[in-house]
């Protein structure tokens, strides 16, 4: 099969200890970018983690540094929520060794952080979409990696649980963690420290969320079909039925 270049001319530094939200229109290459950062896709260039080429990291060591939460992860229907969370400890466990106290503690903390501790004995296949998503987030949190990459982690989450997710991310970042998340929910993405706007397989803009430049770039990336507005100290993005033009109020 032929190879298709999805991303091009990428030169990007993601600062440690910050939350970067990756946004952009459908098909822009956001998920591909995240998969490249996780070392899941081949690239012509290099991705470095703590200054070292990702391909040079031993697999388990890399796994302890870099946790991943994919989009709509399939399967594991028959595992209990607890066993799923415990899978996040695999990079920490010696081969054939049973989980240690620390592993159980990490799984418990993660399940409590995402409010699914009470569901721990249930089959993953029996949970609702939102509950399942929170168990999978707990699995990624249980890795306790300093860097966490998440592809559309808010899928299936209702607004209160989106707010809970936001709190989890804030805690991680406050503790020195680095979070990179692909988000469709621009209202949530605008809470991030930095916004990475991807369009047509390239980086259209990378800057602080609060900056007017970033807001303008965001509006442009969506063909001026959204408008970023301040609401009670934070920002929201509202969809527009018609593109916003400077002269739109001018009568014809």
């Amino acid at each position, binding site marked *: 099969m032929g190879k298709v270049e999805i991303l091009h001319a990428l030169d990007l530094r993601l600062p440690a200890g910050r939350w970067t939200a990756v946004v952009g229109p459908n098909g822009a290459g956001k998920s591909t970018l995240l998969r490249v950062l996780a070392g899941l896709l081949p690239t012509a260039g290099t991705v470095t983690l703590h200054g070292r080429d990702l391909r040079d990291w031993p697999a388990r060591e890399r796994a302890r540094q870099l946790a991943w939460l994919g989009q709509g992860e399939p399967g594991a229907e028959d595992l209990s929520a607890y066993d799923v969370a415990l899978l996040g400890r695999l990079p920490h466990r010696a081969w*054939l060794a049973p989980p240690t106290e620390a592993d159980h503690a990490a799984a418990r903390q993660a399940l409590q952080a995402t409010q699914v501790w009470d569901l721990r004995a249930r*089959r993953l296949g029996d949970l609702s979409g939102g509950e399942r998503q929170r168990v999978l987030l707990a699995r990624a949190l249980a890795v306790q990696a300093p860097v966490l990459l998440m592809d559309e982690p808010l899928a299936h989450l209702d607004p209160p649980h989106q707010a809970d997710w936001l709190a989890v991310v804030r805690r991680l970042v406050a503790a020195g963690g680095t979070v990179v998340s692909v988000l469709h929910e621009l209202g949530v993405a605008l809470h991030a420290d930095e916004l990475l706007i991807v369009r047509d397989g390239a980086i259209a803009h990378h800057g602080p969320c609060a900056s007017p430049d970033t807001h303008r770039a965001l509006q442009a990336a969506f063909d001026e079909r959204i408008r970023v507005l301040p609401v009670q100290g934070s920002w929201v993005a509202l969809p527009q039925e018609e593109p916003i033009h400077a002269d739109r109020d001018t009568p014809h």
Partner: protein
Amino acid sequence: MTRAPWLALALLLLACLALAVGVSVGSTGFDSLRHALQDPVARQIVAEIRLPRTLGAWLTGALLGLGGAVAQGLFRNPLADPFLLGSASGAMLAVAVALAWWGAPAAAAALVPRLGLTGAAFVGALGGVMLTLLLAQGVQHTLRLLLAGVVVGHVLGAVKDLVTLAAPEVLAAMVAFMLGNTSLIGWQACGVMAAVLLPALALAWALARVLDGLSLGEATAHSLGLPLAPMRAALVSVLALATGAAVAQAGLVGFVGLAAPHLVRSLARLTHGPLVVLSALMGGLLLAVADIVARVLIAPQELPVGVLTAVLGGTYLLWLMYRRTRGGGGR
């Protein structure tokens, strides 16, 4: 999680019970067991026929149950079958070619061609898997592997049909093989299957965490630092060896490999470590019981055990689908 050891114990005890019933049941009835100590013929019936065939049925079932659990984990598909990688069609083709070559069916009854057939089935099963791997260009892509297995199954099946068309006299012997039969399993076959089962089970258990990781998708498994390529190759070897050994000794015994892991999962929520072990125990029990039922159902005639497992397994599968569709609305 704590249920697994009890379940294992129960399955082992039931297997012992099945073994006890298995040596008591046959065309000469319970008398053979009663006179086994005095009568050399009765002793031979019990020790050389009933005991190895019952144990052989258990071992065949255990191999298929293990293969089923590995296949379902590897392909992340609860309907995956241990014969999915072309081992069944490979074995059938090899047996058809061997029979045509020796001019069976008269010769097939003799010992040497019988061993030759077993060997041919084993080589054929492994050959079928190899061809699938070749077509799929390795074990990297699960979907490609699955598709290649289906293609190989159809192509080798068609070649087997051509062979049987060219040599129609092998058809009767082929049918016996295709229906699955435990009646000819002797101590040697038991030895071969046990020699495959133990290392295959140990390897599958050691690699179970890869199956656990894979259940969350390939990307997540990779992100957890699992070296997927070599481990997948090892799991495919387990699958090929287990099904190859089973199909070579007992022919095509369907549905045990599919049903055993499902039965285990319906009894307990398990990670793949205990699941592969318990699926082997469950598969063994299923086939040992099916073997007994096949002997008594239309006694003194015998049903091919494969027919029985297909009927029972097929019914179970229909029930499973019914239950899933009925309970699946909320999922």
